[in-house]
């Protein structure tokens, strides 16, 4: 057994990793140990990944401290503490978490890296793989959501980490000495709350925060005139269809929801495809025009969500300002097709007009602001007469035809064609570019496959790849 206990702390710049390592050093000194800590902050102090390394040792008979190392070595770390899941995985990757030696204390929450969050689709790294690697590579481990914990008690994450370290007795340091070390640091009351929470979770006296279901329950429907038809849908898709119907009644009216069901009719026998199609179709049919955005913005439940986000539980005053910037395309969207097209053609002739738009900051918690948005939301009756409605319906019909034709040839291809719906999204320019990409993919990949003699898995796979490529674009 080595005379030196080795602790590696992995954190992000700004999380107080340096303060944490300072607490450990002070606590170890109070305990009478020889201790050394070091770090490589450099520019990593700014939100980048960074590490702090601490060694705690016994003095020899003459009172001399061991020769401490200034950096960890692969396979030679006793305790790794990581403030975030990907950073814990990074410690695994770098060989600092090993099955014969390392106790891993890590948070299970994610702070996404830029490439993960800037992808057009879902660029998030696979959390299951990371979790499995932590379990596989550590000797022992204690993993919980420290971000949620620190949020609950209102502090920064470093004190939670220290508390958990103390509760798990990872280092030869008493709780009193840890607490003593935290005294006199800025924000000591909040630190203490974090410490106690981390300690209690580690000792099992407090429950670790559980991840809730991220999905929100759909809005309750006032009446459900299409219940019988929904009940007649195949079981595998019924729940999604029910949500879709509710969404479209709310979006437009019962007729529109009926159209949704009619559109699904040809796919009743298509098995798993129906469910996916029902999902995509409901989203496509409830496309976000100004009227829809206004409708979503004036909902009471929206305001209560915002209130809870800024920490208001009573009736205290608060303000919400919304940012709108409708331009010529958005205006054209609302006009009858002929008029809308003429407006767009006029704007296209003079490129400088393309940029015409009205930037609006609307205080939706004021009466006049609310009223403006509320009136827009009342324009649902007008929607069926708009250019955007005509265009969307034509596009949806075209897409459904493609899915139907693909289904007749190759169910795998049909699923991918249905999935094409995912790339048609965005507002303004982004939306226009997305439509172009969609058309391009249809022309290049789907059309030839459907008009040719053979289809085969090759096309389905190719389309799948092309779709994920589009969605991975940054």
């Amino acid at each position, binding site marked *: 057994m080595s005379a030196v206990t080795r602790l590696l702390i992995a954190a992000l710049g700004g999380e107080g990793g340096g303060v944490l390592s300072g607490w450990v050093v002070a606590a170890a000194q109070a305990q009478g140990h020889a201790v050394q800590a*070091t770090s490589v902050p450099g520019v990593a102090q*700014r939100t980048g990944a960074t590490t702090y390394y601490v060694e705690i040792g016994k003095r020899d008979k003459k009172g*001399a401290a061991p020769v*401490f190392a200034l950096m960890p070595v692969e396979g030679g770390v006793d305790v790794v503490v990581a403030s975030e899941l990907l950073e814990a995985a990074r410690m695994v990757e770098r*060989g600092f978490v090993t099955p014969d030696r390392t106790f891993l204390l890590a948070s299970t929450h994610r702070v996404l*890296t830029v490439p993960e969050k800037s992808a057009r689709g879902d660029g998030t790294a696979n959390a299951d793989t990371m979790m499995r690697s932590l379990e596989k590579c550590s000797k022992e481990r204690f993993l919980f959501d420290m971000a949620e914990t620190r949020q609950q008690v209102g502090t920064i994450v470093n004190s939670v980490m220290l508390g958990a370290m103390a509760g798990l007795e990872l280092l030869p340091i008493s709780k009193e000495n840890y607490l003593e070390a935290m005294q006199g640091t800025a924000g000591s009351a909040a630190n203490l709350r974090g410490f106690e929470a981390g300690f209690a979770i580690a000792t099992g006296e407090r429950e670790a925060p559980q991840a809730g279901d991220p*999905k929100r329950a759909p809005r309750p429907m006032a009446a459900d005139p299409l219940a019988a038809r929904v009940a007649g849908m195949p079981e595998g898709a019924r729940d999604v269809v029910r949500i879709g119907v509710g969404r479209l009644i709310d979006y437009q009216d019962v007729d529109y929801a009926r159209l949704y069901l009619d559109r699904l009719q040809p796919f009743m026998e298509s098995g798993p495809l129906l469910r996916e199609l029902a999902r995509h179709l409901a989203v496509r049919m409830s496309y976000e025009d100004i009227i829809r955005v206004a409708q979503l913005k004036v909902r*009471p439940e929206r305001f209560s969500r915002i209130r809870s986000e800024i920490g208001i539980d009573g009736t205290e005053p608060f303000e919400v300002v919304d940012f709108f910037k409708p331009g010529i395309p958005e205006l054209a969207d609302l006009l009858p097709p002929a008029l809308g097209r003429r407006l767009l053609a006029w704007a296209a002739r003079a490129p400088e007009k393309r940029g015409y738009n009205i*930037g609006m900051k609307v205080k939706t918690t004021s009466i006049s602001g609310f009223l403006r948005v509320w009136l827009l939301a009342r324009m649902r009756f007008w929607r069926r007469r708009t250019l955007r409605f005509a265009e969307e319906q034509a596009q949806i019909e075209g897409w459904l035809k493609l899915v139907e034709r693909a289904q007749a040839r190759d169910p795998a291809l049909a699923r991918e064609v249905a999935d094409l719906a995912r790339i048609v999204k965005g507002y303004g320019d982004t939306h226009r570019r997305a439509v172009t990409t969609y058309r391009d993919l249809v022309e290049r990949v789907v059309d030839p496959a459907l008009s040719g003699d053979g289809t085969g898995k090759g096309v389905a796979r190719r389309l799948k790849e092309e779709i994920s490529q589009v969605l991975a674009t940054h």
Partner: protein
Amino acid sequence: MERSFSEEIKLLSAGKGEVFRGEGILAITKGLLQSGVSYVGGYQGAPVSHLLDVLVSAKSYMEELGVHVEACSNEASAAAMLGASQVYPMRGAVTWKSIVGTNVASDALSHLASGGVKGGALIIIGEDYGEGSSIIQERSLAVALKSSMWLVDPRPNLTSMVDMVEHGFALSEASNTPVMMQLRIRACHVQGEFVARDNVKPKIGGIHKLAEPAAFSYDRLAHPPSTFVHEHAKVSDRRPAAQDYIRKHKLNEVFKGTRNAPLGLILQGGLYNTVMRQLCELGLADDYGNSALDLLVLNVTNPLVGDEIEDFCRGKDAVLVIEEGTPEFLEQQILKIVTRAKLKIEVCGKDFLPEAGEYNGQVVAKGVAAFLGAHKKKGLALAGAGRHVKKVEEALAIGAKALGGPVLPRPPGFCTGCPERPVFGAIKLAERDLGKVHVSSDIGCHSFATFAPFSLGNSIMGYGMSLASMAAVAPTQQRRSIAVMGDGGFWHNGLQSGVMSNLFNKGDGVLVIMQNGYTSATGQQDHMSSAHFAPVVGDKLDADIETTLKAVGVKWLRTVRTYSVEKMVHTLKQALTTAEKGLKVIIADGECMLVRQRGIKAERARLLKEGSRAEQEKFGVDDEVCVNDHPCVRLSGCPSLTTKPNPDPLRSEPVAHVNQDCVACGLCGEMAHAAVLCPSFYRAKRIYNPGKLETMVHRLRQTVISSLSKVAA
């Protein structure tokens, strides 16, 4: 400044026998005071920033000691400051980040080294080859060698480091030569302890001033023909004097091995702890520094002392020189020494160790194991060594296998709410209309724009060098080019090297100066125009970038608030397309958010404490309105603007989300407008301790709104 140093200042006044517990670089600072320095100067940069920061903060204590402290405008002025020790018998120290800072300082350093010094002159530099190194990996030893300055590379524990500071001054005086002291990042930040000595008031300084200047002496001047004499003195007088001092005071340390094996290790002092730990892991040492092998630890890497090397090598079959960085100057010199001494010994080094890269534990373990394997000796069991090397390799393999692919990198980036982020979003938007332009980057926080999501920047040529490095690019581009520079870089070098050269040559191009008020990347030190944002704090200068630029003749000059994205896009487009010739400067104005938030948070805490009205704002995204396409992230990259799982049961892709760290800088709203993004963003304001009228108005509004809402349903 980023940190408050009040605790550290207390540490600096520790007296004889007290135990100093703290960071390496502060121990060095304490060492300077114990050595009786008359003056300290420098330019900040990792990892040595704290040395100067703490002394600048300790102004009154420095006055009490009579020590002059100067926050120099760049490394050249810091190096020139050592001229005081060339002429007068007073000790002085300067500090900067090497190698880049040393390069900036080189002109003065050559003149300093030529004339030599009367008083001890110490140059404390940071150098590193590892993960924390933010600059080019080059050896400062090369500069020491070519200028005949001495280089100290102490063992990285506080006692050794402080001792070497004191010896450094004495060595400098004994040999009339400036001494450089090299510290790796981890040594600067190491938390440890040493027993303090009393601080010494300088014999010449703020308290004891000289009545008369030095007598005229042409011999001292670094000017021909004196320089020819200096050139000879360096090798015939100064070097032997230094070697005598090193030998006499045993600055280099020999640790006798317990096994009497005819093998030895010669290593740089700074690598001692890494090497010892690996010897321990290889089964060749204990935890307390008792090694099986003989060790020669070079705490001074220039000059080497020939007979010390000879003595160590005599009777050995082979030595391994463990020397970080390239070229292997020590190995070459040691080879020469043993060859001239006709010793039968094999000198190994970079044949067992890698030529480049940090000498971390893994590298040292493999190198030493390979060296020992090639020179098998009785009594040195190597089974443990093999096991250890295998274990290290397995540790890496296990992790890689479990993860199945590389973990995403997480480079540093702009802070939440940083005022510089919007400017790069604006450049991206301007490029959307005008096409890509050449962007010349600089050193500073703004160089984070070279990372995703901006990936902007075609070159980085040095601190304050962006405009100068565009001189030959701009004339060859059909579109105008942009140079980006911080205000720190502007005052460091950019005004002179960039702006003046451009104006003198009637150049063209666009210069964007990030005016955030501080030299932010190195820890928010003040500079010439810091008063722009904090006019009431301390005794700051009121120099002003705009006035300065006008004075040197810049005609096209606009100052734009960084967060005003639309205006910034418009101004950039104007600058890039105007028919007007000549340099076009945009001052992008926005205070460093870290500094601003410290003020805002303190003020809010004060208001809340006394029960007064206070506001807190944050941005948010309506997750039902967001269509999970994320162009907002691609134009911002703010840490608080992220994504979360989609709460909509019909959608699978993550929605944009503003987390609780948001400081409501306003960029999200501005970007939503300027880029015509989407209507998902809102700004919410919470009002603490509202007034009565405010509460009444709010209630009235809520009543009306909720009755309207019922109609909508």
